[in-house]
């Protein structure tokens, strides 16, 4: 498991957001062109394309058309849906999601942003208002920034585009930069650069701008290549520190048919680590068990596919599961898909969660971890991260009422009379939205009071009552344990993205008191 040792990130996920015609597609085309990620047939297809918008001087191509993949997009000259691009710099690989700017496609922006580590927000320097000294950024820019902030991307970088159209005017750039600083302060976004670029001419994107000598900061790609992102962002938003959190994705009752009984649990370790002999608790039932064996999927030893291997594909009845003494007990870390076998049958199914300590209660979340709690072999190697170990005291809470930020994505408005389904990790529970506490006014960046209708693209805060608990934390403390979606099970629609602000009420019972 060598990839768990280093802290370098070999893959960074980006999302670009900006208003209509801010030059986003051209910027991406430029990044790909400079990274030599475009191949000769793609370039010749661009020169064949019927709907050219802007032609760059050096490439002699409409770079924007690279990302606009759909026919209707090319006809209308806009981006409708997220397009994913893959390229690499000298430093690392990138996945870039190009998200649409139009308000009616906000759900696509949210989709792209939920996967991203870094947000790139474009501001068009040539917009008449900005050039003339307007004292606010365009409403779409505010909305996109608010959404990326809500989704807690690790970094947000602002790019001031189309500098060639304002003759690389330093004064205009400085005014925009000041507006960006104010927006960062308003939304509580950590500082980061504001980079002047001309994607058309290639200034400031991969290479430093030669036409803006007054700008001393990095080019966009220099900045991105130099970023270090905490490991938690990848993949599945997993973290390596802390106590074990293992959501059960698939519960197997037998190996193919009922004559071959087997209880194995498949899933990806969300946080912490797992090892044979470890004592674990099922958050749903409160039952304790020990891990008998844990098999990382990546180390599955499949029979070689060669002639002669065809005879006996089915496993023999009663798969021999070695006891923990028979196996080297290397801990298996977060973000690893595994199959787990426990030492005794307990009540555990898809949507349940295994932890190395019981769910937090108001008392336990203030207390230190219990003495004698199972320790991972080799966990002393983690002493270089004392803060991470202190954070280990937290574990998910059995939440039955939530206060959460949301972004409503469906065309049908929220109906407070309806019962919806809520999906959190692998768990699906029935819920009611009991109150809308406020909706975000994008002009003022303030939340207004309740009572407003919630429809497509509304951002707000609501209160949810759950029929069964989910094992959750706030989105601020852990993205994977704080994120959920609302689902309309009748219409089979994904209604809203949710981010837990506060766990208002937790399950009131005593099943863990003697644990």
């Amino acid at each position: 498991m060598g990839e768990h040792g280093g802290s370098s990130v070999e893959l960074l996920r980006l999302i670009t957001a900006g208003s209509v015609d801010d030059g986003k597609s051209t910027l991406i085309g430029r990044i790909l062109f400079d990274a030599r990620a475009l191949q000769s047939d793609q370039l010749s297809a661009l020169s064949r394309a019927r709907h050219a918008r802007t032609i760059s001087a050096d490439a002699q191509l409409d770079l924007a058309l690279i990302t606009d993949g759909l026919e209707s997009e090319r006809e209308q000259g806009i981006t409708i849906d997220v397009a994913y691009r893959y390229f690499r710099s000298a430093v690392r690989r990138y996945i870039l999601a190009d998200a649409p700017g139009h308000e009616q496609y906000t759900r696509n922006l949210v989709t792209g942003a939920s996967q991203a580590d870094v947000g790139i927000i474009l501001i068009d320097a040539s917009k008449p208002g900005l050039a003339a000294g307007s004292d606010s950024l365009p409403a779409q820019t505010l909305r996109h920034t608010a959404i990326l902030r809500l989704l807690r991307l690790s970094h947000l970088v602002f790019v001031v585009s189309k500098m060639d159209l304002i003759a690389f005017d330093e004064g205009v750039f400085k005014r925009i930069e000041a507006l960006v600083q104010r927006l960062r302060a308003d939304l509580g976004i950590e500082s980061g650069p504001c980079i002047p670029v001309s994607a058309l001419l290639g200034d400031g994107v991969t290479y430093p701008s030669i036409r803006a000598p007054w700008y001393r900061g990095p080019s966009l790609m220099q900045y991105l290549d130099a970023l270090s992102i905490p490991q938690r962002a990848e993949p599945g938003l997993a973290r390596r520190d802390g106590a074990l959190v293992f959501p059960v994705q698939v519960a197997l009752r037998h190996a193919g048919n009922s004559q071959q009984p087997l209880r194995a649990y498949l899933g990806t370790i969300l946080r912490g680590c797992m090892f044979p002999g470890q004592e674990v608790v099922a958050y749903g039932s409160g039952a304790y068990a020990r891990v008998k064996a844990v098999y990382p999927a990546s180390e599955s030893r499949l029979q070689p596919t060669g002639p002669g291997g065809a005879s006996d594909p089915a496993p023999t009845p009663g798969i021999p599961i070695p006891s923990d003494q028979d196996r080297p007990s290397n801990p298996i870390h977060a973000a690893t898909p595994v199959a787990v076998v426990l030492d005794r049958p307990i009540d555990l199914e898809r949507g349940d969660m295994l932890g190395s300590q019981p769910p937090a209660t108001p008392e336990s979340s203030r207390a230190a971890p219990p003495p004698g709690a199972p320790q991972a072999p080799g966990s002393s190697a983690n002493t270089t991260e004392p803060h991470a170990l202190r954070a280990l005291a937290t574990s998910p809470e059995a939440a039955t009422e939530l206060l959460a930020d949301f972004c409503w994505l469906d065309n049908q408005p929220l109906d407070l009379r309806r019962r919806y389904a809520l999906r959190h990790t692998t768990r699906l529970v029935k819920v009611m939205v009991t109150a809308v506490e406020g909706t975000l006014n994008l002009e003022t960046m303030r939340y207004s009071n309740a009572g407003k209708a919630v429809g497509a693209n509304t951002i707000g805060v609501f209160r949810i009552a759950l029929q069964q608990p989910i094992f959750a934390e706030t989105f601020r403390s852990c993205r994977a344990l704080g994120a959920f979606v609302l689902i309309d099970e009748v219409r089979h629609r994904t209604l809203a993205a949710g981010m837990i602000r506060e766990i208002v009420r937790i399950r009131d019972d005593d099943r863990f008191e003697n644990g």
Partner: protein
Amino acid sequence: MSATVPAMAEQGHLLRLEAESIEIIREVAAQCLRPALLFSGGKDSAVLLHLARKAFCLGEHALPLPFTLLHVDTGHNFPEVIAFRDRIAAQVGATLCVGSVEASIARGSVRLEHALASRNAAQAVTLLETIASGGFDGLMAGARRDEEKSRAKERIFSFRDAFGQWDPRRQRPELWNLFHASVAPGEHMRIFPLSNWTELDVWEYIGREGIELPGLYFAHLRKVFRRQGLLVPLSHLTPAEHNDAVEEIMVRFRTVGDISCTCLVASTAATVEEVIAETAVASVTERGATRLDDQTSEASMERRKREGYF
């Protein structure tokens, strides 16, 4: 290890892609009532099947796959690929369900302009018939976003209506790793666990895992002629016309599909390592180098996908 085998950082990247794909495959097994995996014997589907087996495995004990394998046979597939498909399906112990374009032609649901016309587009009809008769609600396939522009816009869990159509304006929001696969009767999901893989990733993974492929993917001598700048294999479905100059050269297939529209690349790469080295410096995309049918219009893949094509 030879010099062409990727460095450790690249291997870490493969582990991440593998983890993401396995999580997706397990999610399909958990959420879909009747899932299937499209297995053509091509390299992407061989990687997908390998990942599916790893997803359902306890160490060295493979568990039965909780999906049917599905293939749409145009009747114009390379015989060695069909033989490979059948052998691997038997070896894995999976049920293989084959939909036949020939049968659709016999039924009258597919009509071709002429006997040798490409059956590639007709696959969509047969596929939808196969989905309906098998009652499948989730179909996994090995398509990747780096293949083509409209694929680049497709969700990992991609919704299809009762007519099998992909509507780019009605794609489901797809948030974090909280995939949502439920559909109404008659509708289905197509799931692409390799969405975030590139052609190079696929080859590096084939090398790392020792995944077996049909021999067509490696350099061999073959009679070919040139058309529209592409190398066309000489076959009864793609006969040379009088002004086509037939030559016999070293070639390999970069993609393997219907004979009538799959072309070759000139290559001497006879091993996975050599293919990786060649792919890393390729100057033309995979489909651009090998597909006659994608070049008819800028949006031909998008149009076919709207009609139910993969």
